[in-house]
């Protein structure tokens, strides 16, 4: 998703946040006028609600008196269903079990684009909050008419409305008598005051975890439609290889149970009624297909850092402030360093899966895509169908952490289903499909140079980043669907994806008078797209490692050095909270604690991270023992959800930092399994501790990504404290520790 999650049109809330009166810790911050009236009047609607203002697009009153909330977002394991239910239950005075949440489905729920960028609370949950609050007003108005009284004489509790002092009650369904609320949501809307919330802000348990431990069918991988067949896709040996010949007859003779071979240009898939037979068919097909070599030779053996800097690049100035004329002086006050982050993968534990059925002119698809509507538009164009003839239902899959193989696997399933009208097709990628064909997070290089003034503060800062795109999400463009490249009428991936993610967090969130930030966009050798936090992880790895290097040069404590350059009180609060969390932590010989800070996208959540590492000087092994995070994500919807996401961010990003690098030869990706692309295991994961600073009166800023951002820098800074080695190249190489 382009742009930022920050919505400047939340003008009153923005005003509140700019007052600067800040309560540090875990208490409630409330502006004076909220106390007076117990409600907040807001002056603009959340974006999703402006686009889809009808109440019944968001809320359905069920016959049994419960309420169904329709969201345009997807459950990715972040617990969005629970968070949205909490918001709706509080505004409508329902018990939590009286709310059910329907995930994104085309033609059924609002179109809210992608479930990405940590924006679901700010967009979807806030739209639900306003819609539910407006529905509450409408329901009270209707009840007042029914009983010929004033809304002020009515009470609403546990999904029922009653008159003060009277026993008679009405459920919402009884009041509406089989109809729905179809009004357009309009301002003014009275929102509940945060101090009256029963659910929002609390650590409400997710109900789907019990379904998981009971092995209920909750994933797209678990869908079983009557008569469903199993398909597998047969990928070429390289991105640009073409199918030259395939002896279908000889192949079919060798494969028991084969139902169909689907060939469309260089797209090849096999179908069997038995899943294992489909898997065997894929193995045999791989041997029978003759492919052309790739016309593109990947830069195997070259230093990727050097290679990507030499690629043709579109350059843009991200920021210029003051002048850097005085930066280069031979007086020993300047410092310069270069950093590198390799290609890394989403690495979902469950390979992507799609189920599709083409029936009576409509294609039905079940997918765990993060962007069901944009995917629908791209898929319809690829297949030459009207968008209304493609119906996609969002069903959870394995965690994705960005744009992984979800859309592509569903596209593969759709292509097979189109060739087998009336038959439901389940197509799951094999492990090597996911490892070798998902779109990776781009490799990136970062150069930083800075100057300290007499007082040891940073006066000048020059930064440059080299990166490929960070989004090739479907976005309605069929060229972004992997299978489309291979069709007999192929589509071409758009040349320039969304590059903004490449310089995300490239501007330091510190007070530095003279700055220049440049970004260089290249088109690299591997397929790339959005991976959790996009370029922010690599940029903050560079910025916050370099802040540590500067602190050393200035002979300052790294935390005090950061505080001395910080002006935003919320930033100062999380850094100080982190300081408090680690103040009694002791380190042994060969151990060190490092810290780093970022405000995600420079407009979203604030996060300060510390890592404690143990370094083995002889083997070069680095073990991350413990990590801490202090987070301010604005209003907390589900406290345990935020903590869970942040714990996961720390561990996943520690894994990226310590171990992960996509590797390739001249033709193809060679890291095709968990042996060649290992991730952290139990014996290696740190213990983690998260503190959340809650700000109930400020907009929720999302917590799905903020924790990954400072993690690499915290770890390498800890290594420096442990043994004086400065790591600037990821993943951490044992040779650099011993060398």
């Amino acid at each position: 998703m382009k742009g930022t999650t920050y919505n400047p049109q939340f003008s009153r809330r923005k005003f509140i946040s700019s007052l600067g009166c800040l309560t540090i810790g875990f208490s409630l911050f409330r502006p004076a006028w909220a106390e007076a009236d117990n409600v907040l009047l807001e002056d603009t609607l959340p974006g999703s609600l402006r686009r889809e203002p009808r109440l019944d697009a968001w809320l359905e009153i069920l016959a049994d008196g419960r309420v169904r909330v329709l969201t345009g977002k997807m459950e990715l394991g972040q617990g969005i269903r629970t968070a949205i239910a909490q918001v709706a239950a509080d505004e409508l005075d329902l018990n939590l079990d009286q709310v059910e949440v329907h995930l994104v489905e085309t033609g059924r729920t609002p179109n809210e684009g992608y479930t990405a960028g940590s924006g679901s609370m700010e967009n979807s949950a806030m739209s639900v909050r306003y819609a539910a609050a407006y529905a509450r007003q409408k329901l009270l108005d209707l009840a007042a008419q029914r009983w010929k009284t004033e809304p002020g004489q009515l009470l609403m509790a546990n999904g029922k409305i009653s008159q003060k002092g009277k026993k008679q009650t009405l459920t919402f369904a009884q009041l509406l008598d089989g109809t729905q609320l179809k009004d357009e949501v309009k301002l003014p809307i009275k929102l509940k005051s945060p101090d009256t919330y029963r659910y929002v802000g609390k650590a409400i348990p997710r109900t789907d975890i019990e379904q998981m431990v009971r092995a209920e069918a909750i994933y797209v991988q678990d869908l079983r439609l009557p008569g469903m067949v199993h398909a597998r896709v047969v990928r070429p040996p390289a991105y640009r290889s073409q199918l030259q010949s395939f002896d279908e007859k000889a192949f079919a003779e060798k494969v028991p149970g084969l139902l169909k071979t689907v060939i469309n240009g260089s797209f090849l898939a096999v179908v069997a009624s038995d899943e294992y037979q489909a898997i065997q068919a894929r193995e045999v097909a791989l041997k029978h297909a003759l492919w052309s070599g790739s016309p593109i030779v990947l830069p195997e053996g070259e230093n990727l850092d050097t290679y990507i800097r030499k690629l043709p690049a579109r350059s843009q100035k991200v920021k210029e402030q003051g002048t850097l004329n005085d930066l280069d002086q031979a007086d020993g006050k300047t410092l310069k360093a270069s950093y590198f982050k390799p290609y890394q993968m989403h690495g979902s534990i469950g390979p992507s899966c799609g189920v599709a059925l083409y029936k009576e002119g409509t294609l039905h698809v079940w997918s765990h895509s993060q962007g069901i509507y944009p995917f629908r538009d791209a898929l319809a164009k690829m297949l030459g169908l009207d968008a209304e003839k493609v119906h996609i239902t969002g069903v959870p899959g394995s965690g994705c952490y960005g744009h992984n193989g979800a859309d592509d696997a569903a596209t593969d399933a759709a292509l097979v289903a189109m060739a087998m009208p009336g038959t439901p097709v389940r197509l799951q990628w094999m492990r090597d499909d996911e490892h070798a064909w998902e779109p990776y997070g781009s490799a990136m290089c970062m150069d930083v140079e800075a100057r300290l003034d007499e007082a040891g503060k940073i006066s000048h800062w020059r930064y440059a980043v080299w990166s490929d795109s960070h989004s090739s999400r479907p976005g309605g463009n069929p060229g972004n669907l992997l299978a489309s490249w291979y069709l007999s009428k192929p589509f071409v991936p758009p040349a320039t994806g969304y590059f903004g993610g490449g310089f995300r967090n490239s501007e330091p969130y510190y007070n530095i008078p003279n700055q220049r930030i440049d970004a260089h966009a290249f088109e690299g050798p591997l397929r790339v797209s959005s991976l959790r936090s996009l370029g922010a992880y690599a940029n903050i790895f560079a910025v916050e490692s370099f802040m540590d290097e500067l602190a050393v040069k200035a002979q300052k404590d790294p935390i005090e050095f950061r505080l001395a350059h910080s002006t935003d009180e919320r930033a100062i609060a999380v850094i100080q909270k982190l300081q408090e969390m680690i103040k009694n932590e002791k380190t042994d010989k060969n151990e060190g604690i490092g810290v780093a800070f970022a405000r995600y996208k420079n407009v979203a959540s604030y996060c300060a991270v510390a890592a404690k590492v143990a370094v083995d000087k002889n083997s070069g092994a680095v073990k991350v023992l413990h990590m801490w995070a202090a987070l301010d994500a604005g209003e907390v919807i589900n406290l345990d959800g935020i903590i869970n996401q942040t714990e996961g961010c720390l561990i996943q990003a520690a894994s990226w930092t310590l171990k992960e690098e996509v590797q390739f030869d001249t033709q193809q990706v060679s890291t095709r399994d968990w042996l060649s692309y290992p991730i952290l295991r139990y014996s290696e994961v740190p213990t983690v501790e998260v503190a959340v600073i809650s700000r109930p009166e400020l907009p929720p800023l999302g917590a799905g990504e903020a924790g990954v951002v400072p993690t690499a820098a915290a770890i390498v800074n800890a290594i420096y404290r442990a043994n004086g080695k400065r790591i600037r190249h990821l993943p951490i190489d044992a040779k650099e520790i011993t060398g």
Partner: protein
Amino acid sequence: MEKDLTLKVNGKSRTVRVDPATPLLYVLRNKLQLNGPKYGCGIEVCGACMVLMDGQAMPSCRIPVGEMAGRTIITLEGITRPNGELHPVQRAFVQEQAAQCGYCLNGMVVAAVALLETNKKPDDETIRAGMDRNLCRCGTHTRILKAVKRAADEA
């Protein structure tokens, strides 16, 4: 070549007509409609497909179903008590909210149940070692460790 094979799964005898070379995973998922074991890697390195085989936590993605004669198989479904009550490990996962996407959870619960069968009061290191074959990408490891500890304490 397909054959009739009789398997002992979750306390019941089940006869399936299947090629004996088929890995157990696909028989459990597709012939017996069980959701617990999940396909993850196909080479026994991620643990998503784990089941209890004669009480041991074993991957099911490679082992041919033909080798299951006489062995007792319990899947995540069978770990739930017949009256629907959760096993202490399952209950602890819910209490600790030890999941994000939950795709790996099957193997995690299976591995933990097997571990606690052999070691009633494992220390942290033993739990980590016992769970080391299971991968999680969401980073819920520390919650799962707490859940296993809680299950051990409450059992």
